[in-house]
């Protein structure tokens, strides 16, 4: 039994009982622990008490507009990839009170902001999830103004990452430089090897939690060089496999994206006919923006109680696919679906680079999977790239040429 916490960067070995100890220590140290679980035919992130709730033996098959769970006795605990939920659901919740006002004797006053957030531990975070978190940090912490509620949750966030062993056809983290290896940014990172896990320590907080779990047994301190090498080989092998993927007839097309010069490609093709073409398929349903782990648009609603003396200003996720998003003086600046799709895609892959010095896309593939008609960003961008030269529109604009 070690007397000092394990070092940052060190590797250790644990089985499912050891993983349970980690979960127990997190709950005991005041964290709300959430992790992946099967619910209503999908793997979602919700409160997690024990390893038995984890989706062992479940695989997710994903394609444009398609998500299916399949049980496979040979599959490990974390061989599924990402579902509709992401860290965004917890760090930037879909509804949140951002200010409250009370009225007394005819005068209003603003209530003090809420107390600090409850510490949250998330189990099963992937490389693309960590990359998305880093993107959201830039939006809410790094753009000049700090969102205090986000900051409070972020500072109390404990991340148990998982290195993917498998990619869905919709995954293209290898193209976006965000995976498949998890990190940096985790506190602990698990890699499944056979029936057990190796656990890499990523932070002092991770070390303290792992030390607590070690005290409960079922964790073997340290790993052999061979085990460390085997652990690192998991991400290397998957990355190589993703780069080597080729379409196979009858199977979902493996996604990848050529990001070379993507900002200029998109910003010089704002009137490409492809925007009109995709608009004939796009339902403007907002699903892609809801499942996207980096989409950050929001609006504020006034929520009053029955007395009318207490008003919460509730921030809610907004979507650039809704007509309300760009509404001024009663009409939408982007009344055409083509203009709204163009806004989403060009913001994610081009404008984001100007705004935050990073792409807004992590290649998680959620927008492809959860699009009800299977619109695929990698396909749309490739179509624009293919026809960008000499394929420029002659007198056609995505909106019929009528401004505001």
């Amino acid at each position, binding site marked *: 039994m070690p007397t000092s916490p394990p070092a940052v960067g060190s590797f250790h070995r644990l089985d499912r009982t050891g993983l349970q100890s980690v979960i127990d220590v997190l709950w005991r140290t005041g964290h709300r622990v959430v992790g992946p679980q099967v619910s209503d035919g999908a793997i979602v992130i919700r409160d997690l008490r024990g390893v038995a709730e984890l989706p062992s033996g479940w695989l997710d098959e994903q394609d444009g507009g398609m998500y299916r769970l399949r049980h496979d006795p040979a599959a490990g605990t974390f061989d599924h990839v990402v579902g509709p939920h992401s860290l965004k659901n917890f760090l930037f919740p879909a509804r949140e009170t951002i200010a409250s006002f009370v009225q007394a004797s005819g005068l209003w006053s603003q209530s003090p*902001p809420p107390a600090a957030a409850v510490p949250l531990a998330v189990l099963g975070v992937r490389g693309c999830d960590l990359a998305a978190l880093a993107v959201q940090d830039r939006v809410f912490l790094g753009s*000049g103004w700090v969102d205090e509620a986000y900051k409070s949750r972020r500072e109390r966030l404990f991340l148990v990452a998982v290195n993917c062993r498998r990619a869905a056809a919709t995954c293209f983290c290898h193209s976006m430089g965000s995976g498949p290896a998890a990190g940096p940014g985790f506190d602990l990172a698990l890699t499944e090897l056979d029936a057990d896990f190796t656990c890499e320590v990523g932070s002092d907080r991770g070390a303290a939690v792992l030390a607590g779990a070690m005290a409960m047994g079922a964790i073997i301190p340290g790993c052999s060089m061979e085990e460390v090498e085997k652990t690192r080989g998991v991400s290397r092998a998957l990355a190589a496999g993703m780069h080597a993927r080729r379409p196979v007839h009858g199977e979902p097309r493996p996604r990848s994206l050529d990001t070379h010069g993507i900002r200029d490609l998109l*910003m010089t093709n704002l009137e490409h006919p492809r925007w009109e073409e995709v608009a004939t398929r796009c339902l403007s349903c907002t699903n892609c923006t809801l499942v996207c782990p980096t989409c950050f648009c*929001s*609006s504020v609603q006034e929520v009053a109680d029955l007395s009318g003396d207490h008003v919460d200003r509730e921030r809610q996720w907004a979507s650039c696919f809704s007509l309300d998003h760009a509404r*001024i003086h009663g009409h939408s600046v982007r009344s055409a679906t083509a203009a709204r799709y163009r806004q989403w895609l060009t913001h994610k892959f081009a404008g984001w680079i100007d705004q935050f010095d990073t792409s807004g896309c992590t290649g998680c593939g959620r927008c492809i999977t959860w699009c009800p008609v299977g619109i695929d960003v990698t396909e749309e961008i490739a179509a624009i790239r293919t026809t960008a030269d000499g394929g420029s529109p002659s007198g056609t*604009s995505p*909106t019929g040429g009528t401004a505001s």
Partner: protein
Amino acid sequence: MSGHLSGPASRESPWRSHAARIRGITPETPGVRTYELELEDVLARDQYRFVAGQFNMLYLPGIGEAAISVSSDPAGRKTLAHTVRAVGNVTDALARLGVGDQVFVRGPFGTPWPVAEVAGRDVIIVAGGLGLASQRAAILCLAAGRACRSVTVLHGARQPEGLLYAREYDGWRAAGIDVRTIVNDPGGAWSGPIGLVTDLLAPAIRDPSATTILCCGPDPMMVGVAEAATTGGVAADDVFLSLERNMACAVAHCGLCQFGPLFICRDGPVLPYRRMAALLRIPQV
């Protein structure tokens, strides 16, 4: 042009509003009133500083918020003027309030008119309708200072009664400002020019390389002004436009005001035409 100009004390939450009282209401054009707001908290009032072109988020609990330019002289400390047209739920509710009623204020936000960077230059202020509200603070600054070579205000409205701040023109002229107005749907009593404000622009540009243009109005009007100005030899960097977009947060977090890569709340509302020229030409960006 400076980058991000932070308004309220930077360590304060962007969602913190300050209670204010309406100290005066001045009817302007039909449906438009100017509200003089005084922050209730003495410390907040003393610390509040804005520059011409910035805006506040005016909030009515249970109703909502609206982004409104500050129209008073930035050198004034007591009250903040906001000229508002009743066109939505917040501004309609504001129109039902009276002197002494409470309004909450967050701000100021956004980039300023370049009033500090026009020494020795001819400044032409081009305003369409209520757009003049965002420029009044700049006019008052320029009238008070003597740094620029000349100031011309070109103001267009649909009808004569839509000309904003008409009672102040004599005072502006007395301060050496050339004020010209134009309408495109005159009534019987109108003896001035008839047409669009753009018609007044070309003759007003005397020395293009030493001219700075500050323009605010509907997007198509601003595009017309910017194109006429640059055609007339004014550099696209010397033509400044103030854009209006949907806003909820005013601090580049909510994303609603995006115009291409720009957050109009933070990178604007005042921007040089050069940064937007390509985007303004494309419908529905």
